């Protein structure tokens, strides 16, 4: 590791411009360039979309539990003509938009952008991001995406409906289906803006992490959170341009009659034949070349955060820091060469499928290493079961389930059977809702005192955890059985098949659990906003944690640190029996002058 230089950009050096109070407010809170404000902007926007995406999911679950029953009250408002039934094309809109909102507007930005922005400078001891203005732009680039995808609900055909994967020709032939009209074009525009925003962010993170670490903060002293963000940023920087380009190509297919993804004479729904000459599979390759790494974009930062939280509340060092870092890197590396496992049944050459299968199976190894290391961290600790800790353990528990079912999917012949069934739905919901969301909640509960200077209510936090944990498992575990029964995804009404007719009771159970999960989030909302006003005020380090952000004021002011942080050791020196306290902040020199940070490794 090269020695780290510190770039000091004191606040005084910034040009002082006379501004009206409105101007000041505008520049401080709206077009803010402070990474913390931007992080919070991302946090609030994504939480809002989280709610929207959740409500879309509820509508999906309603249809699956009570198919073609009139949705009470909302139904007649939306679908008066049919008495309140969800129409089948609206169902496709629901599944598409639920996925789009959750992936592009919630999980990716909340992990990479909200936490990334907030935590990276604080945890590496920098005053701000490397490029504060670019940072601001990356947030405001999300707004065109919000507006485009939001607007797509209002233009015919009322929401894109070609699936979040937007497979052509369904998505590229305007006439092929409701949902691939104007709304689909807007949807593609939205995805493009998300891509641009994320790329801006990732460039910023990479530069910041490489260039702006505090003195003494070597790469191998970085907390796992930062490693997660760092690798995520690499993934984003290299994979996202592919998706953005692919989206532009699909856009030109739709708008200007190019034929990247359309075969010769492609028609649907009696549309005019397209001159075509392209290949629908090309999109799938390009799309998954981004979207498979995106799966890791959606989980690696959470893995990092959970590693930090587990170590903090186990009051002992993280088990195997170096293997953990290595496995994150291996996951990311392999993540680039396994996209084809989404396409085993797509008509891609089966021989190619085998090579993808081999790489995919191997990705289970670093994942397993991580799980074992987390268990190793718990082993022999003095576990403080605070809310963030419970969420972190919940993360591990659910990630195990999601990861193990992934092995079934990695195996080509088995995947042929369960591809596009509820097995897949169960799998990625365990990873995304189970694991990633658990990680998000863990992160919010953990860093809330740093963000707002007050604690969230522990009691209600634990109630929230218990309900969420129970009902998320209740929602997604039975889906494995639906998948074993081969119930296909994206079916508005599977029950008219004899094969799936018996699945209604289980689906009702799932739906009730899903509604309960959604209802339990009310506790979180109340706790979150209630604590803003009534939470217990805390000092700098309420959790007795080691990492740098806890030595800054809560909440940190502009410039983050009121002293120059110098790092003396790694982030996980908990429970050292030779020390007085069971934690040793990274900024505090040890009494004996020995740096134990890399004692093992």
């Amino acid at each position, binding site marked *: 590791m090269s020695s780290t230089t510190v770039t000091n950009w004191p606040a005084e050096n910034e040009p002082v411009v006379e501004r009206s109070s409105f101007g000041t407010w505008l520049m401080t809170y709206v077009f803010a360039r402070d990474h913390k404000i931007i992080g919070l902007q991302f946090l609030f926007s994504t939480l809002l979309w989280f709610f929207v995406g959740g409500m879309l999911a509820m509508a999906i679950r309603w249809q699956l539990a009570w198919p073609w029953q009139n949705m009470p009250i909302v139904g007649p408002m939306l679908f008066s003509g*049919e008495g309140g039934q969800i129409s089948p094309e609206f169902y496709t809109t629901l599944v598409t938009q639920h996925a789009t909102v959750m992936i592009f507007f919630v999980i990716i930005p909340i992990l990479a952008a909200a936490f990334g922005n907030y935590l990276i400078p604080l945890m590496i001891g920098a005053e701000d991001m490397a490029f504060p203005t670019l940072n601001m732009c990356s947030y405001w680039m999300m707004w065109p995406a919000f507006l485009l995808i939001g607007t797509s609900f209002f233009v015919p055909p009322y929401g894109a409906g070609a699936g979040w994967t937007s497979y052509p020709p369904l998505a590229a032939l305007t006439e092929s*289906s409701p949902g691939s009209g104007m709304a689909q074009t807007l949807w593609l525009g939205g995805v493009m803006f998300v891509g641009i925003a994320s790329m801006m962010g990732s460039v910023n993170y990479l530069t910041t992490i490489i260039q702006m670490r505090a003195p003494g903060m070597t790469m191998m002293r970085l907390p796992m959170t930062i490693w997660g963000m760092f690798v995520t940023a690499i993934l984003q920087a290299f994979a996202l341009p592919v998706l953005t380009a692919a989206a532009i190509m699909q856009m030109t297919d739709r708008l200007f009659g190019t034929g990247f993804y359309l075969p010769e004479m492609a028609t649907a729904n009696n549309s005019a034949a397209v001159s075509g000459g392209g290949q629908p599979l090309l999109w799938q390759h390009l799309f998954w070349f981004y979207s498979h790494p995106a799966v890791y974009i959606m989980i690696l930062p959470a893995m990092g955060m959970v590693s930090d939280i587990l170590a903090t509340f186990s009051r002992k060092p993280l088990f195997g820091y170096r293997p953990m870092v290595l496995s994150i890197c291996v996951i990311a590396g392999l993540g680039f060469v396994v996209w084809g496992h989404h396409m085993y049944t797509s008509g891609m050459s089966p021989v190619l499928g085998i090579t993808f299968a081999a790489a995919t199976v191997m990705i289970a190894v670093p994942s397993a290493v991580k799980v074992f290391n987390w268990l190793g961290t718990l082993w022999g600790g003095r576990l403080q079961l605070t809310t963030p800790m419970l969420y972190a353990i919940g993360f591990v528990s659910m990630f195990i389930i999601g990861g193990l079912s992934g092995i079934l999917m990695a195996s080509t012949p088995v995947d042929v059977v369960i591809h596009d069934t509820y097995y897949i739905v169960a799998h990625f919901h365990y990873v995304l809702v189970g694991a990633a969301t658990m990680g998000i909640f863990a992160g919010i509960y953990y860093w809330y005192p740093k963000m707002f200077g007050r604690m969230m209510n522990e009691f209600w936090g634990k109630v929230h955890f218990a309900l969420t944990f129970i009902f998320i498992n209740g929602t997604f575990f039975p889906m494995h059985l639906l998948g074993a029964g081969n119930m296909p995804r994206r079916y508005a009404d599977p029950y008219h098949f004899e094969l799936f007719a018996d699945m209604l009771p289980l689906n009702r159970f799932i739906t009730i659990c899903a*509604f309960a999960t959604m209802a339990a989030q009310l506790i979180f909302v109340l706790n979150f906003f209630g604590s803003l006003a009534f939470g217990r005020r805390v000092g700098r380090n309420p959790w007795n944690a080691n990492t740098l952000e806890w030595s800054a004021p809560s909440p940190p002011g502009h410039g983050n640190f009121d002293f120059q942080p110098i790092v003396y050791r790694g982030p996980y020196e908990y429970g050292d029996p030779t020390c007085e306290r069971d934690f040793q902040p990274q900024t505090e020199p040890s009494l004996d002058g020995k740096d134990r940070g890399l004692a093992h490794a």
Partner: protein
Amino acid sequence: MNRLRNHSSGPLVITTLIAVAVSFLSGCEVPIASFSSNLVFAKRLEIDSGMKMEPAVNETQSILAEMFGTPDQPTWPKLLSEDQELAGLVSQQRLTRAAGAVRSDQQDNHFGLFREHCVHCHSVVGNGVGPTSSFLNPYPRDFRMGIFKFKTTPKGKKPTREDVMRLLTEGIMGTSMPSFRLLKQDDLEALTDYAIYLAIRGEVERRLMMEAASELDLDKGERLLDPALKESAPDDYQDQLRLIEETVTKVAQSWTGAASSVTKVEAPPADYPLFGRDTAGSKEAQDRLGASIANGRSIFHGKIANCASCHGNTAMGDGQTNDYDDWTKDWTILAKVDPRDKEHIQPFLDVGALKPRNILPRNLRSGIYRGGSQPVDLYHRIVQGIDGTPMPAVGLKPDNPQGLSTEEVWDLVNYLLSLPYEHITQQSSQVPPYQRENP
């Protein structure tokens, strides 16, 4: 279609939560109170007659509700069920099965079939303007004119029950109408009844509205069935009532009469060559088939059948492509509105009409035959024409000395069946290159 209210708006979110709560407590039923009125037709009559049609629309609505019930509780009009001949047309029991909300009983009998399978395209009232309809090409059928395209009876006649049933079981290739052949026979019967019921109801509605527009001065308060007359002039009231009943009976009779008007198909002699079957047969059969196809080709391009004028010399449907079907003409041409005239069609679109589209002659080389691909189906299309479209019926000898003989029709059928296998540039009578590279 009030879908514009987005999920993200606050009130909606709250109502959703309440709705979810309420749904657990109640059985979650939202009845549909009534069938919607034929406002597009009313608009046309309004333009035509210069009168405000609203009173007639409302009155028709209540007369129909009295006779035909509601979407949740449809009734087969009493006067029809009392008529021996007409009672069998539609059974009340099947109507009940097909109507209402989707549900099923302990014995796994499904109810609400129409709303499960059909409303998304054809809508509750069967006007072909369901939520999905505007995205489909061609548009779903509007039953209310009582016109159906693919059937065994001539233009102007109703389809037989079997014809409707066949459309349900086979679907309509080349359109968005899927096949429902995997439903239970009972369910299909119920849906057939319900479709006929909607068609009759819709046609009665049109006739009553037409009657009101052309015989009554609505502005002066005249009514189709004036309850005030019941006391003051019972005879007049009875006359009015009789007129309405006659209308209903007449429409229903047109359906029962369909079976007797089925076009008789003259089968050719048994040794007649047939494309596909005899393509790889004996040399003699092949020669006869070649001659038959060649003759069919000359008929196709000839003046008697005049096929090429619309289907084009290439048979790809690129001839006359500017026409409209009867469902569109009903509210455009007949209301003196040019379907291309955006400004004038807008009032119709506002009340629910779908944007007019040209009716295109079929591309006969695609191998897709909407009315069925059996030779007998093509025979029907040729000698009957296609109802509701500009496709005319070719005359048959000997009734029409200038028409075609049945053998010539079969020749034409052979030619049509061979078209998908013929090279587009090949207009000569050589045997088309059947052998294609097989995967």
